[in-house]
């Protein structure tokens, strides 16, 4: 037992030593995480200060004030409806709210250019945000309410999902490179040809990669949060636990994939393609509830959905089923380890 522990410790020490002597790998993986969180997160969160025209010369509604407050829109007031429509046509504004000036008719007509459904969707989302958050003060005949009023922006909402996705990317790539590199360099045999070496290698590699990849993610989140401006919440212990468990799960699954795919080229290609598919299907970009029904069923199968659910819970405070999430992530981890272990015992020399 003591010898096994020393073996594991030796491999962990060696891996960390190698890691520190490859600073480029550390820097590039941190940079990747920073870029994904900031650029992808910002893009997915949508535009801010969208030029929005408002035709309400008599100030019948207080729509302009409310739209400005969301920071999603930058309101341009018009006294001339035709001029506003002309600006909409030329793209100076992307939407126009035509507030009826008839005291007996309190309707509002929203006009968009109509060429781009994604732009329309962003406008709708922004308007919905105004209508749901500000219902008490909005001088419009729309009455809305939310069951769980949230205090985070769309940008905040994107971060936990991206953190779950980054767990997949960082753990998968780190484990793949670390393990397949040992095979390529033939040093893998030095480890497995010691008594119980294979078992120690599996334990040590999964632990090391979990710690290394988690460190990179935490660093990236800490760098990006103040720069880009999103919340990491206040549940830091929860964030640490959630990161470690998610990383561990994807490390174990990465090990299984590495044993199956065997070469860096095929492994990298497969993990990258699968990662994109998982990101879309696991509710990272679009909430699961807003996806087609068959995709919702798929999402419930994959671990990234549960990792994202847990991250959302600890960062945003949204209701999350932690026990279910942890249980499923652990089940996936065990599956990955068993699969890898089976393959490694079957075909050690060919690796």
């Amino acid at each position: 037992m003591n010898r096994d522990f020393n073996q594991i410790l030796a491999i962990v020490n060696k891996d960390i030593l190698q890691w520190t002597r490859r600073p480029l790998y550390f820097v590039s993986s941190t940079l990747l995480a920073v870029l994904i969180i900031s650029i992808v997160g910002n893009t997915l969160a949508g535009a801010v200060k969208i030029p929005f025209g408002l035709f309400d010369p008599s100030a019948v509604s207080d729509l302009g004030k409310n739209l400005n407050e969301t920071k999603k829109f930058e309101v341009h007031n018009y006294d001339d409806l035709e001029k506003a429509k002309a600006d909409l046509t030329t793209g100076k504004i992307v939407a126009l709210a035509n507030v009826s000036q008839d005291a007996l008719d309190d309707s509002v007509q929203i006009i968009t250019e109509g060429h781009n459904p994604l732009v329309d969707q962003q406008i709708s989302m922004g308007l919905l945000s105004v209508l749901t958050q500000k219902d008490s003060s909005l001088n419009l005949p729309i009455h809305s309410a939310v069951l769980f009023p949230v205090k985070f922006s769309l940008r905040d909402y994107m971060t936990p999902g991206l953190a779950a996705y980054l767990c997949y990317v960082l753990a998968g790539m780190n484990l793949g490179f670390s393990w397949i590199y040992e095979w390529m360099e033939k040093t893998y045999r030095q480890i497995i040809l010691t008594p119980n070496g294979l078992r120690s290698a599996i334990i040590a590699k999964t632990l090391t990669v979990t710690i290394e990849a988690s460190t990179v993610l935490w660093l990236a989140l800490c760098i990006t949060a103040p720069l880009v401006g999103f919340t990491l919440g206040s549940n830091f212990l929860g964030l640490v636990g959630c990161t470690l468990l998610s990383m561990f799960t994807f490390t174990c699954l990465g090990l299984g994939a590495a044993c199956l795919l065997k070469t860096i080229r095929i492994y990298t290609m497969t993990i990258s393609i699968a990662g994109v598919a998982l990101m879309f299907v696991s509710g990272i970009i679009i909430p699961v509830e807003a996806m087609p029904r068959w995709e919702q069923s798929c999402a419930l199968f994959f671990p990234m959905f549960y990792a994202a659910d847990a991250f959302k819970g600890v960062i945003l405070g949204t209701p999350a089923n932690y026990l279910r999430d942890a249980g499923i992530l652990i089940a996936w981890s065990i599956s990955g380890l068993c699969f890898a272990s089976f393959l490694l015992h079957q075909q050690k020399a060919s690796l």
Partner: protein
Amino acid sequence: MSLPVHQIEVVKNKMSVSKDAGNCSQSEFAISAVNLCKNYGEARVVDNLNLNVKVGELYALLGDNGAGKTTTISMLTTLLKPSAGEFFICGLNGIKQAEKTKGSFGIVSQDIAIYQELTAFENLWFIAQLHGIPRKRALERIEMLLEHSGLTDKANHLAGTFSGGMQRKLTIASALLHEPKVLFMDEPTVGLDPAARRQIWHTLKGLRNSGVTILLTTHYLEEAELLADRIGIIRQGKIVVEGTIDELRHKIQGIRSIAIRITGEVAPDILQNKIDKLPGRFSNQVKFDPLRNTLSFAQPKDSQLVKILHEILNWLEQEKISFTRFATSEPNLEEVFMALTLEPHDDDEPGHFPISDDVQFEHDYT
């Protein structure tokens, strides 16, 4: 004495393997393989291979690429599961007691297996920790092995900065760190320059003298002949010939040749006239390769070598044939195999075997 190995006393050897855990001193054979097979789909790469290597012996497994050497080593080192058969290392069943077996042997593969980002010392220290060697003993072993490998001055240099020969030495040191009783060496000198190869040979001889059992695979006949106590020739996954060095050397000598590269162009008919003037013992023993401008003479037994050389040199002088190079050449494995599996002839007559067409001036005496 013909040397087919099909009569290897497999059953007897199997019975003599000690049941003691990894105690080579209590076994007659350090390595014993019994009807070992490996199939890849329909292809049988190792075919009922039987092998016994005595304790303290250096056994060379000689074979061409694809003969099954590496697959055999992979099975004997527990890296590859045999399709059939079994094997024993120091009395331990390599299949049923794989984990216990691992501690008793070391392996040096064809590839350099060291961590490029670690120093020589860190590489060895890591291996020592993997094997659970106590700290004090580990430091002693590392110091000794570094010194023996000539790497003491480079102990704190990154292994990635080493030359190929130095990296190979470090790989061998790694394999020896835990003082294995059995060492598997899979073509350890492939890709090394002559000086580095000689250093590896020196190390191997030292290890054999210290009682380590070594199974060496190679496709260099010269290497096997120089180092091994016994040689087995493997073809298509079977050991087809096996014997001691003396037994094999006796046979191989007949198919070695002496090659002389002559200068200038000599018309073939004129050269043939000159060759006809050679003593009768050379009849049918001389070949001329016009492409390489080389004359090849079948190499005689040791006892006649000086006399024959003298005659050849005299003939060259008398016939005014000038030459630039003078070398002995090694037969290739195919020729060795043919020679060793043919029925024996009169030992005093050296010319029953074909002279190699592939004369290489590796040993240039000019």
